[in-house]
Every structure is written in structure tokens, then in C-alpha cells.
């Protein structure tokens, strides 16, 4: 990554990459804040199709929360030097992540089945678009998990500070997409 200056002359303790990710998370929050406030503004204008959100989305919420839990324990195992747990939980997180995206797709299918199609009314369009763009962010997280798995399985196990920091970046992002989904499902629930 070129000339990343050594952290020792940082005035603050936070790693530059972590701060950068926090700022990036801030901008992603703004994007979803825009979507959800657009939803509110549009809903208040009337002509709004009401429908019940398919249950599959709630199942999915459990899946992504679980993935955050497994990732957290993968991280603590990594720090404690428990190599097997670290690798196993990392794979579990990855599979749960994939499962989340698949279930989202099933959820969209369930919505189409009850007549809340993509184009019928903005009320359903919004759900597809918001959850779809969230799913795209989850896919980005899965890509990061793949990198973490490559690190875990290709490199020899050595819990160095640098490896830990890199892993922390993956965790930071993954927990963010998890919390983001909890916000979104809560938003959909209170709004519809």
C-alpha cells in the first residue's frame, strides 16, 4: 500500500485504516439514511401499498446476528491462539454470510409471490432497493471474509499485531453490515 507511515508517530492511537473505515461507514450510513428518509417522505405522500413483510426476513435477521457472533468468537480465538476455533468459526461466518444473501433472495421471491413486485408500488420497490443495496454491502463483506480466510488457511498461523489489525478491519465492517440490517429491519417493521 505504498508509504503508509509507521503508526508510531500517530498522535492518536487509532490505526489510519480503521479510521478510514469508520469514515467510510459514516458515508454508507448517510446513503442508507437517505434511502430510509426518502421512504418516509414518499410514504407520507399517500398512494402507498401496504403489505406484510415475509417472515423470511426475520429468520434472516437471526442468521446475520449469528454470523456476527461467530465472527466475534473467531476473533477472540485468534487472539488467544486457538487456531482450530479461529479457522472453524471463520468458515461458519462465511457460510452464514452466504446463507444470508440466499435467504434475502428467497425473501424477495416471497414478496413477489404475494404480489408486492418490484414495480407495483414504491412501497415494495423501496424494500427491494434498500435490502438489495444492503445485500451488495454484505457481498463486499463476504469478499473481505474470503481475504481473511485466505490469510487463515494459506499463511502459517501467527497472531501478529499486523494480522490482528487486518482481521479487526474485517470484523469492523462485518459488524457494521449486521447492525445496518438490524436498523433496516427495525425501520421496515415500524414503518409498515
Amino acid at each position: 500500500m505504498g508509504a503508509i507511515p509507521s503508526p508510531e508517530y500517530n498522535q492518536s492511537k487509532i490505526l489510519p485504516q480503521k479510521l478510514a473505515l469508520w469514515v467510510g461507514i459514516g458515508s454508507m450510513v448517510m446513503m442508507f439514511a437517505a434511502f430510509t428518509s426518502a421512504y418516509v417522505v414518499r410514504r407520507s405522500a399517500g398512494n402507498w401499498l401496504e403489505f406484510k413483510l415475509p417472515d423470511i426476513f426475520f429468520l434472516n435477521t437471526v442468521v446475520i446476528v449469528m454470523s456476527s457472533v461467530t465472527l466475534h468468537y473467531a476473533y477472540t480465538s485468534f487472539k488467544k491462539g486457538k487456531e482450530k476455533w479461529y479457522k472453524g468459526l471463520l468458515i461458519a461466518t462465511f457460510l452464514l454470510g452466504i446463507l444470508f444473501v440466499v435467504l434475502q433472495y428467497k425473501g424477495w421471491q416471497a414478496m413477489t409471490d404475494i404480489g408486492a413486485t418490484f414495480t407495483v408500488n414504491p412501497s415494495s420497490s423501496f424494500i427491494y432497493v434498500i435490502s438489495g443495496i444492503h445485500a451488495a454491502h454484505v457481498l463486499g463483506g463476504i469478499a473481505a471474509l474470503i481475504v481473511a480466510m485466505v490469510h487463515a488457511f494459506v499463511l502459517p498461523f501467527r497472531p501478529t499485531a499486523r494480522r490482528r489489525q487486518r482481521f479487526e478491519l474485517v470484523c469492523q465492517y462485518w459488524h457494521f453490515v449486521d447492525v445496518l440490517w438490524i436498523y433496516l429491519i427495525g425501520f421496515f417493521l415500524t414503518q409498515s
Partner: protein
Amino acid sequence: MAHAVTAADTLEEKLTQELGYDDHFHEHHHGDKFQSNFLTTYIFSTDHKIIARQFLITGIFWAFVGAAMSIVFRLQLGFPEADMAWLKPILGKWITVNDAGIGKLDPEFYYSLVTMHGTILVFFVLTAGLSGTFANLLIPLQIGARDMASPLLNAFSYWFFFLAGVVMFLSLFLSTGPFSGGWTAYPPLSALPQASDGSKAGMTMWIVGMALFIVSSLLGGINYITTILNLRTKGMNMWRMPLTIWAILVTAILGVLSFPVLLSGVLLLMFDRSMGTSFYLSEIVVGGQILDRIGGSPVLFQHLFWFLGHPEVYIIILPSMGIVSEVLSVHARKPIFGYRAMIYSILAIGFLSFIVWAHHMFMAGVNPFISNFFVVFTLIIAVPSAIKVFNWISTIYGSNFRFNAASLFAVGFVSMFISGGLTGIFLGNSAIDIQMHDTYFVVAHFHIVMGIAAFFGMFAGIYHWFPKMFSRFMNETLGKIHFWGTLIGAYAIFWPMHYTGMAGVPRRYYSIENFDSFKHFVDLNKFITVAAIVVFFLQILFIINFFYSIFSGRKLTVKNPWGSNTLEWTTPIQPGHGNWPGNIPTVQRWSYDYGKGGEEFIPQFVPLKEGEHDHGH
């Protein structure tokens, strides 16, 4: 990089060796792997100084294209009867030559020109070209860092901008023409390909180009914020930072928070265009055909657009404000007046910019009661703006002012900012907006306050930091001609527009000659066009001066030609990768100690004397 320990022959080198921070930089790179050949040095570089120059030169290219477009539509406005057949070799089928051999500009293409002129100038020149150049150049150099927090993302930021430019440029050559619905891209015009030719492939490419541009802007912004907050050298606390860095920091924060909102809005627009959703569309008849798209709200797009759009105008003006503060202080040889007030004003402007967006929508059917709220906050922006103006004037008041191209443009900025800011007070009132909206008064207001003013700040920065960028000076005489010509010319263009606007002449119209009430403005319109052409050629003079000086300008022979306090002037005349060959200087004082204690200037790396008070703290 042979730089271990050389004889300290100046005070600066001595202090840098004694007090400077040794981050073992030289131990990391044996030889310079980043600048090993032409391609990695000048094209795919990750060095912030090269990326700054890439942004600048790309920005100049776009400024030329955007300005040339304005000349074409100004010709149409000023001389609607004139024969434009001579433009046929450039504009091709967009010039229709009738039987008498008289060439006319295609009205559809006129709208494309206006739209592209706005898009290019606002985003490609005054956002990427201005922020991209000076954030990249000045952040690491002025805060004492080797490079950006992530040089790779920084390079991506440029290349996404480049790609956005390629997409936008190619859209100019579409058979249906580039997008023509105005730079604000309001639906339904932008959402329905059948609405106009420009809304077909031109709009699709506009969206793709803008999406790439937003990615570029976010990558850049994240990097700027991280670098400023995290990589400052020892002693460079926030209250010692030059105002350029403060302005760039707030600019980057505004960008990171507001561009994602535009991305949301544009994504929904994309779904409306290509997937059949109706976020912005409801009950529309187009071409005699009733569409089945119902339930959308076009005003929703305006909310999302202007939630970016208003911070965007401060994204444009804040870097210029920072540059002007620095340039005025250096050339007035006086500390900036009200350093802290300047910072608080920047923060206040940044905050207020997020809660005034609906003043762009007073006439779009927004509840008049809610408009009052936006009127009040809009007018409050006048307070921090006035504080800044007062401080700039106080900085140069009674000073031993050095008149050169850089400082003149900085003074010109203040003049433009006052003139344009005052008309903002008119337009910020929703009642006056009933008469003024969508007239040339608006055009005059925003061109002066954010177009010309931001350009003046950019020119001040270019003339001031050109020696740092290219190790040569630009030609002073040409620079002064450039300044006086542009100052007078810019007022000649935009001052008369206030009168036409107050009389109600609408903006964006292809021609106003058919309206009896505007007949008496025909000569004024001619005058504006002639002034625009003169100013355009003055900018070509600048471009010639710029490129000539890169290769044959007067050589820089000393490190610190302006006698400036900031750290960028402690780097070698041609700084290599990593900026400082040895230690990074540490900062002992704020950056504005000019004329203090009998000394003309005291650079930031000089320790405080016993009992001396640091103003920044």
C-alpha cells in the same frame, strides 16, 4: 536517496535534524521502487504530489471544454441571427445549415451544452479539479506527512475521476446527444427516455459518469479526513494547522456525508429509468401517451439532490476560502486576522450547509411554512461568511502588501465573494424568490459567488504553489494581465445579468428575442457575449502560461520563495517520494507568525522563545 546526515548549513536543516521526527523512513525503501520508470512516476503513481498534478491538469482540460461550451451557447444568446456554419467542423450535425447557407445551433443541443457546462464545471472542475489538486498537494506537505494514509486509494480516487470523465466525454459524441435536462437532472425529464433525445443514452452515461465520480470523491474524501486526523507531525495539533487544511478537512467531511445521498437519489433514478419502478414518476402523459407509472414524487428527487447539492456549493467554495486565507496572510506579511474565528466560521458554514437545501426548491411546491425555516437558516449563513470577509479585509488592512498574481487573485476572490454573497441574501428569501427564481439573477448570483470566486481561489492557489508543484515560477506579467482582464471581464459578464434577471428574463432559454418585454436587452446580451469571449481568451493565456512555465518558467532557486511559515516550503526544491529526505520537521508554533517580534516571518519548525506565546493554542 543519500541523505543520512549532511552538514547542517541553514537554521532550518539544523532544527530539522535536532528536533525533527525520525520515522526511519529511509530504512523502508532502498532506492525508490515507486518511481522507477516513466509509467509509475507520472501515470500510475501513488505519490500524492503527482496525483495532485494529475487532478490539476485533468481539471484544466475540463475547464477548457466547459468554458468552450459556454462560448457556443453565449454566441447563440448574444447573436441569435448570426451564421454559425463555421462551427460545423466541430459541432457537426448540431449545426443546421438552411437553404440560405445560414448555420443555426440545434435547440436540443443548446440544452445539452447548458447541462454539460454545469455538470463539468461544478463536479469535474470545481470539485475534483480544485479539491483534488490542493487536498492532495497540501495535506501531506502542510501537516508533515510522508504521503496520504492510503496512497493506493488516493490513486484510485484519481482514476475513478478519470473514468467518470471518459464516460462523460464519450457521451458528447452520441447520435442522440449528451444529457440535456439541466445539471440537476430533475425527473421526470431525466427519468423518461421518451421525454427528450438527451434523456436517452446521454442520460444513462451521465448517471454512470456521476456514479464513478461519486466513488472517486468518496475515496478521496475518506483519505483526506484520515490523513489530516491521523498523520500530522509531532506538534501539529489542530489549532496550529494552516487554514487551508482546516478548509479541506471540512470540505472532505461535507463530501463524505453528502455525496452518498446523491448516490441514493441517482440509484433510484436509475431504477426508474431502466427497471420500471416509480419512485419519482406519477401520472405522466408524454407524447400523447398516458404512462402506467403511478405513485412517485418528483420532489423527492429534488430533496435528495439538493441535500447533496447545497453542501456541494460549499465543497466548491471552502477550499478556495482556505487557499485565500493562506495566500493573503503570506503576501500581506501579517498573521491571519481572527484565526479561531475563521475556523469556527468554516465549521459553522459546514454545519449550516446541511440544513438549507430546500432554498433551492421554494418554487417547487414545498410547503411555504417549511420554507420559512429554510429562509432563516439560509440567511444565518451570512454571519460566518461576513466574519470571514471581515477577517480577510482586516488581514490586508495596513499591511505591506505584495502585489503579485497569487495575492491579486486572492483579493479578487474576496471581491467576488462579497458581490455574489450579497445577492444570495435576495435569493434566500422565499418571497423575493417568487420573482427571481429561474432568472438570470440566479445565474449571476451563483456564477459570481461560487463559479468565479472559486476559480479565483484556485488561480491564487495555482500561482502561489506552482513553484512547489513544478519547481518553476509562472510568468508574473501574464499572470497580472490574466487577473485584471478576468476581474473586469467577469464583472462585465455577470453584472448585467442581475438587471436582466430582475426584469424576469428566464435562464436556460434558447432565445429571448420573441418576447416583447425583453427586446431592450438585445444589446446587453451582445455585450455579455463579447465579454465572455474576451475572458475565454484570457483563460487560454493562462493555460499557455501554465504549460510554458512547467518547462521553461523561471527556475526556483530557494526552498521558500514567498517567505512562508508552513511546512511545504521546508521540503527540497524538487521533493522526492516521502517529501522530506531525512527527518520530518516537528511543529513548534502556529502557521501565521508574520511580523512578530521584529522578525518578518517565523516558520512553524522554529521553537518558541522563552516566554513567547503561541497564538494557535
